[in-house]
């Protein structure tokens, strides 16, 4: 079930939450709405669910307009950040809820409901907790129950609002891998909201980067990470170093990289910390002398902070462990850095 979002706008008083959003979610995909808080991503999700009404625009599920349809008739599964489990019901009753509130004619029999609940319990790997109350579960378990509850009625669309936001780092990582696996098994069209770029890149088939009520870029995780459309997307998807570069009319040059420049011959180059090479000796005139000011050796990618000798700007670098060991850097040492894979965005003069 694909979702077509056309020209959706939403204001809260003077505050614009969404500004003419167009977006298509292909059937069966897992799409992440990624953006900083206040970018309108949760509002968009709630409009898809019908929990919020848009000021303008339409929502279609597979070409069928649902903009005016009530929440309970849209057949969406919604997972809330804080689970929103029914506290007075057991895990079983929570998952069965959606089936038991169906009109009598459509309601499955007791045996069918029980079978479906146990099937879902198997899926969320919590078979043994069927009689527990939500208060007796851990955060991760609660969120899995919430997900099973949302899936119980076989929704056309699954919507998740920061589903792992309230969990600790370890559980979070486990659950998002599990969600990815689960989606590969059941293939329900899913949209989830997150402000965590790692989560979006790891889990989603497609990432929608949002900022200030607008969509900045839509693409696969590789696309948005490797070919960001603009400086915002570049900066939001990872850490970044800025290099102010000068060039002539025909283009700028920095080491081996060439890039376009504006009319003043100035541009900003964006470089990821992982694309900074650290050298003991300068290899070319373009290499920048810098002093090591901070080293964080723990973790998968050791981080080094350097201060440029020429203008005092700080540069962040990340390097593989092996290279880190070979270099054996010490604080206060002078080295050379070589920015590679420089990204430049041509300023938009239409504004």
């Amino acid at each position, binding site marked *: 079930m694909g979702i077509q979002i056309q020209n959706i706008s939403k204001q809260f008083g003077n505050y614009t939450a969404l500004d003419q959003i167009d977006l298509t979610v292909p059937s069966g995909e897992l799409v992440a709405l990624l953006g900083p808080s206040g970018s309108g991503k949760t509002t968009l999700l709630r409009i898809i669910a019908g929990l919020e009404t848009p000021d303008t625009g339409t929502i279609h599920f597979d070409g069928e307009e649902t903009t005016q349809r009530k*929440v*309970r008739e849209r057949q969406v599964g*919604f997972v809330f950040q804080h689970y929103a489990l029914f506290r007075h019901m057991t895990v079983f009753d929570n998952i069965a809820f959606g089936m038991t509130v169906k009109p009598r004619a459509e309601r499955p029999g007791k045996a069918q409901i029980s079978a479906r609940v146990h099937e879902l319990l198997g899926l969320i790997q919590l078979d043994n907790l069927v009689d527990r109350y939500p208060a007796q579960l851990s955060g991760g378990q609660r969120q899995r129950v919430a997900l099973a509850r949302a899936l119980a009625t076989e929704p056309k669309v699954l919507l998740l609002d920061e589903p792992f936001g309230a969990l600790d780092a370890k559980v979070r990582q486990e659950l998002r891998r599990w969600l990815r696996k689960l989606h590969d098994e059941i293939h329900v069209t899913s949209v989830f909201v997150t402000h965590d770029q790692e989560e979006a890149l790891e889990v989603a088939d497609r990432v929608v980067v949002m900022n200030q009520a607008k969509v900045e870029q839509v693409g696969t995780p590789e696309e948005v990470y490797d070919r960001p459309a603009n400086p915002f997307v570049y900066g939001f998807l990872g850490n970044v170093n800025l290099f102010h570069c000068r060039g002539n009319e025909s283009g700028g040059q920095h080491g081996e990289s060439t890039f376009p420049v504006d009319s003043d011959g100035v541009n900003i180059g964006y470089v990821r910390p992982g694309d900074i090479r650290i050298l003991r000796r300068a290899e070319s005139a373009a290499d920048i002398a810098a002093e090591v000011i901070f080293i964080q050796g723990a973790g998968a990618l050791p981080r080094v902070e350097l201060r440029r000798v020429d203008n005092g700007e700080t540069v962040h670098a990340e390097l593989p462990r092996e290279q880190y060991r070979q270099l054996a850097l010490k604080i206060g040492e002078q080295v050379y850095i070589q920015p590679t894979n420089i990204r430049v965005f041509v300023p938009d003069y239409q504004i």
Partner: protein
Amino acid sequence: MIAIKQRGVLPGFGLAMGFTILYLSLIVLIPLSSLLFKTATLSWVDFWGTVASARVLASFRLTFGAALIAALINGVFGLLVAWVLVRYKIPGKRIIDALVDLPFALPTAVAGITLAGLYSSNGWIGRFIEPLGLKIAYTPLGIMVAMTFIGIPFVVRTVQPVLEDLEKELEEAAACLGANRWQTFVRVIFPAITPALLTGFALAYARAIGEYGSVIFIAGNMPMVSEITPLLIITKLEQYDYAGATAIASVMLLFSFLILLSINLVQWWSRRHAER
């Protein structure tokens, strides 16, 4: 036992426990036991003759019955008031909110006289109701009116905070799962506020059982018809029949205790899901 072994954040379990027992003894247990001691000066036959006399039994039926109905009315309408106060933006909400507490603050005699005036045959409300063949003042109905009046704040004030804390997301989750509004209320909201509602109900009931001041002005106080038990106790006291008064009082106390205990048990059952 566990409470002693575990070291809490705040020290002084022993001291706090000792003080609590001493305090409750002074304030509650000793007065109540003196009541029982006084009752015990009666012989069994005299005791039974007093508490099982037709007039006393009629007053028990009236007091507990009227209080039950009043508490039920308060349970329904108190919930409604709390709901409106929490859920809707209405002009003058703060004032309505403050009005709810007035029955707490008003001297009960003032409430009684005012209600009696309103519902009597030439009162503001009574003059419209009486032609319909319904007499409220000076009948058991009037007693229920007074008991309802003094009981309403208990329900509103216990349910209100729980409703305020109820996450909006629960209702949204229910709606997404296909529940209609009635199903959402009955299956999601109501169970969540049941414990608070029961507490409010129990408090309103207890208050109505013991209510004296506001009731006697509107009750008419006719023996066998509209005479409440607290009035009967006062009557006995005025006749210097202290033992008789305490005998009635201790039976009343016993019933009240049993009723409150059973409500507490129901409440405990309704909270079973909160255990951790």
